[in-house]
């Protein structure tokens, strides 16, 4: 080793010459202050479990969506002005279409990496909502919503609603036949609301469907309003998580007052950064190898065109299934009509989300347990909650399958009316069955090995 290097390392070892890290710390302290807090937080403890990565999947999907979304926003034209297409995709040559649709065709066929970024964006959106729901299920089944985390539960549920709605806005932007059909259905659902429905639909859409301003209206909501709201709530969500610390599963050395885990620096920071990049890599691989939402095959939206195998993105599938399965029970009250679609499309979502929002208080009503807790429960420790949750998610799953019933019928060669009838029976019969079965099993076995 040269003399110079020897002197430097000796100096660092004895504190005489500052290392790069020390220099950085000194700069921060002089320009920011609070080095004692920073020192503490360097060792912020994160309990270890694979189940705690689920929220991170959602968070990192959001980051991927924002980054890819910025790229897309530079090319998308949020206008329904009619243009005649003459781009590279010849089967649409000479077809009049909206500027929005045309810009998405250009993105997909003419902009370098445009199709890749578009597909990564869409795959990330699908995985985002899926991760949020799995994350919610984990919270639910392990009791993470109990005091002092009730408010964080409410914030998380609000995030789920905002994200789902933003996804709906997002895939409607290209103004293709599939998503435009979805907007038609959204208009019909809105106008089915008693008293205010027709006015609300007309005001929100800018007139009777189809309107020429709906894409331009959705655009700022999708790229700015909702992402800003999501980012804000996310900040609060993570801030509370930071201040209250993450919950942990029961184990040696762990209780409501003591937490055990990895320090943030270096272990956790390395792992979570690595996980973010792995997630981005998986999403990019999907965006490169698996085609999603080929809008050039769907054609531009026209109110006279329709396609079979028409579904919204998967996370709206439960709503689609409810709408398909609910019979046509219109109610005529004098000169007024309550259309049948009001019940599965407006009332049912309310019935689904209201108990979810109220759940921490419903839980208190059932258990009369008010303590501040930091230790989670294994799902089978609360057989009643596990049964209720299993039944609830079974109900949503049957609805989800119902939303794609014509695709399943075609893919597997089943008869569609038979499948529909079966699902209508299952949606009533299966949830209580699964709940009872879950209760029986949970009472007997502990599933702690699954989530340790």
């Amino acid at each position, binding site marked *: 080793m040269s003399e110079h290097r020897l002197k430097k390392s000796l100096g660092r070892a004895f504190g005489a010459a500052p290392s790069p890290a020390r220099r950085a710390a000194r700069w921060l302290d002089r320009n920011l202050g609070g080095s004692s807090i920073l020192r503490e937080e360097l060792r912020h403890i994160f309990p270890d479990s694979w189940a705690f990565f689920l929220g991170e999947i959602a968070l990192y999907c959001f980051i991927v969506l924002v980054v890819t979304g910025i790229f897309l926003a530079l090319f998308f034209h949020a206008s329904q002005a009619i243009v005649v297409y003459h781009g590279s995709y010849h*089967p649409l040559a000479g077809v009049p279409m909206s500027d929005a649709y045309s810009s998405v065709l250009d993105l997909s066929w003419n902009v370098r990496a445009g199709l890749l970024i578009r597909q990564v964006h869409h795959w990330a959106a699908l995985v985002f909502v899926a991760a949020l729901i799995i994350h919610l299920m984990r919270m639910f089944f392990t009791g993470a919503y109990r005091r002092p985390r009730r408010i964080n539960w409410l914030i998380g549920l609000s995030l789920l609603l905002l994200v789902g709605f933003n996804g709906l806005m997002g895939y409607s932007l290209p103004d293709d036949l599939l998503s435009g059909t979805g907007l038609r259905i959204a208009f019909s659902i809105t106008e089915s609301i008693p008293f205010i429905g027709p006015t609300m639909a007309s005001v929100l859409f800018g007139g009777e469907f189809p309107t020429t301003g709906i894409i331009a209206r959705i655009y700022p909501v999708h790229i700015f309003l909702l992402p800003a709201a999501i980012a804000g709530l996310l900040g609060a969500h993570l801030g509370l998580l930071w201040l209250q610390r993450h919950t942990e599963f029961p184990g040696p050395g762990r209780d409501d007052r003591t937490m055990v885990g990895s320090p943030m620096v270096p272990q956790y920071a390395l792992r979570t950064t690595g996980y973010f990049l792995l997630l981005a890599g998986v999403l990019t691989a999907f965006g490169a190898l698996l085609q999603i939402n080929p809008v050039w095959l769907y054609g531009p939206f026209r109110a006279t065109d329709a396609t079979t195998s028409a579904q919204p993105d998967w996370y709206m599938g439960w709503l689609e299934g409810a709408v398909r399965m609910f019979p046509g029970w219109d109610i005529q009250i004098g000169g007024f009509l309550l259309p049948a679609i009001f019940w599965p499309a407006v009332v049912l979502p309310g019935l689904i989300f209201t108990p979810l929002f109220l759940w921490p208080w419903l839980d208190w009503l059932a258990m009369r347990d008010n303590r501040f807790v930091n230790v989670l429960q294994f799902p089978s420790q609360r057989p009643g909650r596990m049964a209720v949750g299993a039944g609830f998610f079974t109900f949503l799953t049957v609805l989800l399958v119902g939303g794609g019933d014509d695709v399943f*019928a075609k893919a597997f060669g089943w008869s*569609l009316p038979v499948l529909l009838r079966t699902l209508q029976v299952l949606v009533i019969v299966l949830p209580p069955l699964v709940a009872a079965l879950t209760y029986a099993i949970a009472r007997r076995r502990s599933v702690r090995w699954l989530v340790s």
Partner: protein
Amino acid sequence: MVSLWLVQRGRGCRRVSAAATAARLGLCAASVLILAAALSPAVASASSSPAPSASASPSAVATPIATLTAAPIAVQAPVAPAGPGADIFAANCSGCHGAVGQGGVVAPSLPYRPPPLAPAGFASLVAPMVRQGGIQMPSFARQLTDAQIQQVAQYVSQQIAAPVARSANASDGGQIFRLYCAGCHSTTGRGGAMARGRNAPDISQYPAAEALAAMILGRGDMPVFAGHALDVRQQTSVALYVDVLVHAPSPGGAGLGYLGPVPEGAVGAGALLILIFIAVWLAWKSRKAVP
């Protein structure tokens, strides 16, 4: 001279060389006899057909289709000296499709000419049909070599087809397809479940010319799209668009069945499972950690 009149009805004259005119006159005589024989029973049973030259619509050079079975189509007699394609046609195809492709009870007419601007042309529709066969049409892959198939495809598209379909193109076909066809067959042509238990088929698995036959003759639950529902040019356009769907481009990667958001959602669940698996791996070592 009936055939000449049929040729020039609604289309205007075409300038041809003297030799070609002579050839045409000679063949006219033959075609008159054949046409008279073919048309007479159809004429006897046909209900009234409007005179197409009076039609105001630019696309409706009418091909009066009065019934579903016999389809008397105005066809153009071959205009150039018949080549090897004509011999192949006469030996293999005319039995069902008629000597000049005018169609018959079991087979639709072949009155289509490739649009000059379309890159692939109608030959691209004929060759797969001959090679692979359709629902009611046998495959000729064993009787004919590839070169022979190309020759007969050329012959059909250049000699037999009528100029009425000259302006047919896939993008017009796509617009019609999305208006009339996608409701049952889906925009990607992969078919869909019908409400009474049967399914509209995946039309991408047949040669696109099969779509022409289905439009003209109907199929099972499928209604007929002929006459004034769709005219010859529109039918050809739809068939050319179906050809696009048969060879559907998938620049984004694997098509996942072209069935829309349902398989996409299922595959997205796969991505989530992969990520959960990675998380399990990542947390594996520290899961039983003791302070």
